[in-house]
């Protein structure tokens, strides 16, 4: 009896090997869709963040223009040169991993996987808007030399700098994992509550 329980306890809850194979297979169609959608999604993000920036300014001086497929150039009417260039596609390429992870989960109906992916993508849109907003504010606060120092306090410079750093590296890369655990909590974490 005890041995059987131990053996059952040693058995993996989740077919990780199957999950990995499926994730790698899903990466190809997901990458295809991402490449097709990226030019339109970049324009949407650029327009959305330009509106957010202008709403946060008095007077509204920011202008984000599209450059090519992947970039945006931030300009301000009170600056005589562009504030900087951001590669917008770099903000949202972890969507590849997110979609592959959500669609590869074994033992869950495809419809449910797509439904959860839809909610996760919606949450990701807000995350991407916030990331690009911080990127542009970071350019204003820290990359304009004397102008930055004159218009942003050291506290504000650190706030936008650290915020951009955290959103651009750890949270961007951890975002797919966070959403995956949040939407499929029963896959890896021990089920039930110790009090149960």
């Amino acid at each position: 009896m005890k041995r059987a329980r131990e053996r059952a306890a040693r058995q993996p809850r989740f077919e990780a090997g199957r999950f990995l194979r499926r994730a790698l297979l899903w990466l190809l169609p997901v990458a295809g869709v991402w490449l097709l959608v990226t030019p339109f999604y970049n324009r949407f993000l650029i327009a959305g963040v330009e509106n957010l920036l202008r709403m946060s300014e008095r007077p509204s001086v920011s202008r984000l223009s599209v450059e090519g497929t992947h970039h945006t150039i931030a300009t301000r009417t009170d600056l005589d040169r562009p504030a900087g260039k951001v590669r917008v596609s770099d903000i949202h390429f972890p969507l590849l991993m997110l979609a592959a992870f959500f669609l590869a989960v074994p033992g869950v109906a495809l419809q449910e996987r797509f439904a959860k992916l839809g909610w996760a993508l919606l949450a990701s849109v807000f995350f991407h808007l916030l990331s690009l907003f911080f990127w542009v504010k970071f350019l204003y606060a820290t990359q304009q030399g004397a102008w930055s120092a004159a218009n942003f306090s050291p506290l504000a410079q650190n706030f936008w700098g650290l915020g951009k750093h955290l959103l651009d590296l750890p949270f961007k890369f951890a975002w797919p994992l966070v959403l995956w655990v949040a939407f499929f909590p029963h896959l890896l974490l021990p089920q039930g509550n110790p009090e149960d």
Partner: protein
Amino acid sequence: MSKARKKPASASASPRHRRGPSARVWHVYRQEILFLGIFLLILGGGFTLLSVNAVNDQVVEPFTAAVAKVSGTVLDLIGQDVSMQGTLIRNTHFAVNIRNGCNGVETMIIFLAAVLAFPAPWRARLAGIAIGMVAIQLVNLVRVVALFLTGVYFPAFFDSSHTVVWQTLVILFGVVLWIFWANRFAAPRTAPAATPR
């Protein structure tokens, strides 16, 4: 959130389910909330620490230089005849500068945070961290070498390969490694009623 966690309708009559909505969410999803909270806390803390100049200069830069040195040695072994200067690797055709984001530290911290946040015995955590760090650095080594070769032989693909392809693959590797660890070695499972197989 998932079908597996839904309680049967009859359970709503028990005293436990007469709690307020937030208490009920906490009761049902405590493990998940704790995991995500601790994970994000360690992640944010770790990366804030990395952004401190002293930590960057005393820890990250020497570590990145070591990554560059090992990568340069491997590139030399496969006949690329490179020279190294700090975090810079170059030959007559191409040069790369290994910077933050290219040294595998981000993936290591994400992996570390996920391992520490997961409910597991400390022994399993320490073993996971030790093996995971080495494995992530090995994959990152492959990445740096592959990127250098891409820069030499297929320079047009370097940018997309650098950001989209290899960053995705390295992070994917870290996450999958954590999933394997969590699934196979970490938490004691809630064994089903002992039915011998």
